[in-house]
């Protein structure tokens, strides 16, 4: 198994996206996007529909011509190179298997186009099908396979010719949840064992967090933030990233010195960094602790009074919704068996360490 994967392993190429824009008659799909993908990296383009993530992938693949900008693969400008000469593997959400060919012929297709010798085609197709564990279905037609099997065939077809990078356009979007999670693991395993560059497009933030080395968040055709999943989660640079990735408690207000003044309640909260701007305070639920009224709060913590509205048992912990006096809700995720057990309808203190909350400016794009 590992031997066959090793046989298909290649060295991934770096992909350098330089100032790519794509304008249609009256809309801008991509606006001056620059992104450096390192060789062998698993990068995810994450965004809602219409964010331009698929457009960017199709520009890298060569199916869409950019209005301006350059694409370099392994240091070479390929902006005007047609797709069939780019040597990039592509996996589509709709699988795009050739219905008139069986599984074996589908996987052999890229090798045949490269005039690989017959015996070599035989060997490499076998290997690729073994990698996705579909060797026994080689003679089936795509229409005789389940969605998950079809996508595995598409994967085998995309890696069989050892492409310089693998581009995947929402490859798991058409599959149900269980299958999606299973294939996420398989794709991640493929990446670590092949060592090729992976560019993965999804709108599913959990998928992005689970799979990627780095995530590029796109919004309305512009790049919002690029970073490791941890960076994006712990240090979002904008309210959009904070809300898009994971659950957040957000307070809008003003950042002054090491304080944050909430706009509605005028509550004065301590924060770790200093600054002076309008912005939002982002507090992740796992950093929001709960305590019984009157109990001691550690030094350096902010405290808010509230009433427990809802407690949901999640197995690994609790998800508690607390209503603040001004009616807003705040979410906390304490451990299931802490010292304090929240009861719906009772008063509660919500507290967090000043360093744990983050202030993001309202207009991060203004900064250079």
């Amino acid at each position, binding site marked *: 198994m590992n031997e066959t994967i090793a046989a298909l392993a290649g060295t991934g190429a770096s992909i350098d996206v330089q100032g790519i824009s794509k304008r249609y008659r009256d809309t801008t799909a991509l606006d001056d996007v620059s992104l450096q993908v390192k060789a062998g990296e698993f990068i995810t383009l994450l965004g809602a529909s219409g964010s331009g993530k698929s457009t960017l992938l199709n520009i890298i693949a060569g199916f869409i011509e950019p209005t301006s900008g350059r694409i370099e693969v392994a240091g070479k400008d390929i902006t005007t190179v*047609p797709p069939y000469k780019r040597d990039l593997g592509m996996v589509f959400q709709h699988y795009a298997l*050739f*219905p008139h060919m069986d599984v074996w012929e589908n996987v052999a297709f890229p090798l045949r186009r490269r005039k690989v010798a017959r015996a070599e085609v035989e060997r490499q197709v076998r290997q690729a099908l073994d990698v996705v564990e579909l060797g026994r279905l080689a003679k089936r037609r795509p229409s005789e396979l389940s969605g998950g099997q079809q996508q595995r065939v598409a994967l085998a077809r995309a890696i069989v010719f050892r492409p310089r990078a693998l581009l995947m356009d929402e490859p798991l979007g058409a599959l149900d949840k269980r299958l999606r999670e299973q294939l996420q693991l398989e794709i991640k395993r493929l990446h670590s064992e092949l060592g090729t560059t992976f560019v993965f497009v999804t709108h599913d933030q959990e998928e992005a967090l689970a799979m990627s080395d780095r995530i590029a968040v796109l919004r309305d055709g512009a790049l919002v933030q690029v970073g490791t999943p941890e960076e994006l989660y712990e240090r979002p640079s904008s309210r959009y990233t904070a809300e898009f990735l994971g659950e957040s408690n957000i307070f809008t207000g003003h950042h002054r010195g090491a304080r944050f003044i909430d706009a509605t309640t005028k509550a004065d909260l301590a924060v770790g960094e200093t600054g002076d701007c309008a912005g939002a305070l982002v507090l992740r639920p796992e950093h929001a602790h709960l305590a019984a009224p009157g109990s001691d709060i550690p030094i350096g913590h902010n405290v808010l009074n509230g009433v427990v509205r809802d407690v949901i048992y999640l197995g690994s912990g609790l998800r508690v919704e607390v209503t603040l006096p001004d009616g807003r809700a705040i979410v906390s995720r304490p451990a299931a068996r802490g010292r304090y057990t929240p009861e719906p309808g009772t008063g509660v203190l919500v507290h967090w360490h000043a360093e744990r909350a983050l202030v993001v400016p309202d207009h991060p794009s203004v900064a250079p």
Partner: protein
Amino acid sequence: MACQVTVPSTRERVSAHDADPAPAAPRPPRRAGGLLDRWGSLVLPLVAFLLVVFVLPLAFVLAQSFTEPEPGLQNYTDFFGSPVYLDVLANTFRIAGMVTVVTLLLGFPYAYLMTLAGPFWRGVLMVAVLVPFWTSLLIRTFAWVLMLSDTGVINTVLREIGLISEPLPLLRNLTGVLIGMSQVMLPFAVLPMYATMRSVDRRLVQAAEGLGATPLQAFWRVYAPLTAPGVAAATLLVFVSSLGFYVTPALLGGPGDVMIGELIAKQLSGVLRWGFASALAIALLVVTGLLLALVARFVDLRRMLGGAR
């Protein structure tokens, strides 16, 4: 309700059969209350019509081929024993085959262009292929005579601009027949191919290019095979329809281009050998049927013609 007895719908027959092994099982009363059967009976006028104008005359023709002028196989032995008549049969198939090739070669790119064009130009192309459809066959054929004759439009223009000194032989020969018949048959080639092409997922062509196929390879390895059902349907439709042509080859063709339709007409109205004409018609029908049966061995005809998926 007697109609239900004479022509039971498929559904009724199936359900009756299903009920046989388990008559004890209580079956819910059918909500439709025979509605389907009543809808099914709507087909009766057509069945009656076909019976009167098609099946009965055909049976009559078949009988006549064995009985006129006297009972026996005389008409068939005459036909199959004479190289002249067999030549006409062979000629019929040869011309139909050539017309098929010509219409496919013209129709395939035309249909492809229709799938590429925007809504406006697609409409224009569609009308262009359908307009001849709406004019009388006889008028179209005479129009071709005016176009193709030695002093016709084409030869006159070519002579005027000095491209030729002697008129091109376009009429009363195979060229004329092929031009005339191909024009008539073109819609039958274009429409089924267009219908199939429209349903081909063009993203597959893109995928092929992403996997290393040049645009030409992507077209021939992926797109073209997926249009095969349409091409097959067009082939069948054009070929079989061409076999029965009469007016066009008679007016545009020469003595060497006699097709069996023309021969049948001559036997009927010229020499009044009704029995022999019947035998010719039956022979054409049988040979065509055999040919279709042969094709059906290799191709799923029902699927090709959109009957079943």
